[in-house]
């Protein structure tokens, strides 16, 4: 708790301080650089990608990497590089939006559970335990299957599956902060419960939530790729990385680059997010300062 409070202080005190500390970890810097590149590709995909992701060219189907098609082409002659660049958009969007959903819903549930305690706490957290007892990929599959395939439903499914983790983390942090004197002081000046939770308690437990969020984006991208791989995610011709893996798997013996390059893209993104997440955790934790 003390850790969280002090860490948040530092962060608020200067984003620069945290950046400075992240800067000391080469892995985190590498992660940040990779992420920045992927973000750049995603935002400017229209300009950067050699051709449109859906542009078919049957004359050039199954071409290996060459000067014209840097990463080769797939069974319809679509440029894999272009599809990966456009795919960054989809993957990042799925990752961040589904984590956003999970963070908002889980955060509120956890905060309410931790703040009120007693029966409310029991009710919410037992529901979360039930969700947690189902492997998250299975849960996401079940939700995606019932909602039907599609990009939007994919994000909802991945988001819901991640809710319990955030609820737990937020509840724990709220519990440790709830007992502090400044919360009582806030009550003594006549603040309402909602105001105390959102204005006084939650800003004090941001550090663990941010770290979990960063790592959570990686998991979400992976789960989303998994769902797309089994056909419950995005639908063709949208170039989601998982869907590209899935599309290439029947040709894996003859044309391995069709699965290899999207796989590398997924791996690099997850790796970078994990590096940044670890770096953030260390930077926000003053106990690991040196």
């Amino acid at each position, binding site marked *: 708790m003390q850790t969280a*409070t*002090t860490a*948040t*202080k530092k962060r*608020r*005190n200067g984003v620069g301080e945290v950046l400075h500390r992240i800067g000391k970890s080469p892995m985190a810097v590498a992660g940040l650089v990779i992420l920045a590149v992927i973000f750049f590709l995603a935002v400017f995909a229209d300009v950067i990608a050699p051709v449109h992701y859906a542009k078919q060219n049957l004359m050039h189907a199954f071409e290996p990497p060459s000067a014209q098609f840097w990463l080769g082409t797939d069974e319809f002659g679509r440029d894999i590089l272009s599809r990966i660049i456009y795919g960054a958009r989809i993957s990042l969007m799925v990752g961040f939006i589904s984590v956003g959903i999970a963070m908002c819903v889980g955060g509120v549930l956890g905060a309410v559970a931790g703040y009120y305690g007693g029966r409310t706490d029991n009710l919410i957290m037992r529901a979360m335990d039930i969700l947690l007892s189902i492997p998250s990929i299975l849960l996401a599959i079940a939700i995606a299957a019932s909602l039907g395939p599609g990009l939007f439903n994919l994000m909802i499914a991945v988001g819901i599956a991640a809710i319990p983790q955030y609820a737990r983390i937020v509840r724990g942090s709220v519990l440790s902060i709830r007992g*502090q*004197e*400044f919360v*009582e*002081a*806030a*009550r*003594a*000046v*006549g*603040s*309402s419960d909602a105001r105390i939770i959102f*204005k*006084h308690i939650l*800003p*004090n437990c941001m550090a663990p939530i941010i770290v979990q969020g960063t790592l959570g984006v990686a998991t979400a991208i992976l789960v989303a790729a998994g769902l797309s791989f089994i056909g419950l995610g995005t639908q063709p011709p949208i170039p989601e990385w998982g869907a590209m893996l899935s599309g290439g798997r029947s040709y894996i013996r003859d044309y391995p680059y069709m699965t290899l390059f999207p796989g590398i893209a997924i791996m690099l993104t997850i790796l970078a997010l994990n590096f940044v997440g670890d770096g953030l955790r260390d930077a926000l934790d003053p106990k690991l300062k040196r």
Partner: protein
Amino acid sequence: MANDRLLLDIRNLSIHYEVEDGTVRAVEGLNLRLGYGETLGFVGETGAGKTTTALGIMRLVPSPPGRVVKGEILFEGEDLLKKSEAEMRSVRGGKIAMIFQDPMTSLNPVITVDRQIAEMVALHQDVNEKEALERAVEMLALVGIRPERAKDYPHQFSGGMKQRVVIAIALACDPALLIADEPTTALDVTIQAQVLELMKELKRKLNTSMIMITHDLGIVAETCDKVAIMYAGRVVEYAEKRRLFLNPVHPYTQGLFNSLPELDEEQEELKTIPGLMPDPTDLPPGCPFHPRCGYAGPQCATESPAMVEVEPGHLVACPVRARKGDKP
């Protein structure tokens, strides 16, 4: 005393905590009065029920396990215990403000101090954000903090300055009653003196009544008009400060004064009161102090002592000593 002259009149208040080992009688049949503009010193050992009483007045006793069992808390003639939660929210901070013991932890570490003061103002007065922030800077100036520090975070302040900020928050809405729960315990002695001086001055300026909770008789001598001595959840002696200091009647009060070290004498050991505070889940019958009392007679173990007026405005919950009426 006529009712309309009293700001606060607590009658027969009992607050209990229901815990696994039984019922903790934190406050038991407490009576207390406070007039407009007065400062009352609320003295007692740790666990005597001082803070519980203060939280009771604010209706902030943690529940469960705490429960106000009976009694009335008349504030400006209205019973606070009968008010709704929404009504209490406007009383808290607006009419009754509280200063907590530890300034290190009673400020929110992630909000700048001017915003913390402005929050208080915005909650109770019809002002926009800008006006609230202006008021915050005024309040900071009032407690002696320069306006350029307004945008700082609590950890950038020293302990004494944090307590000044806390005082500024408490007084921002000009409350009728200020409850200070050991406001100087966490500060070192020189800063204590400064903070007490500031509180005295502001109290005079704003004409606020104050309850000063403390276990330090020196602070009482410094700041208070009246004193209530608390023991095991009850007020055992209540008097005007000078009377109580010159003529403590209750054996417990005498014990407290005797335990202070003498300045002009060589002392090997401090004089202590024999025994310990009773276990609040298992208070002795009759007078809770009788097992430790040198004057105790047989009736002390059976009869709960009533408050007796030994001289005008000087009430003592000890019939034995009151009868003797002896002066030191």
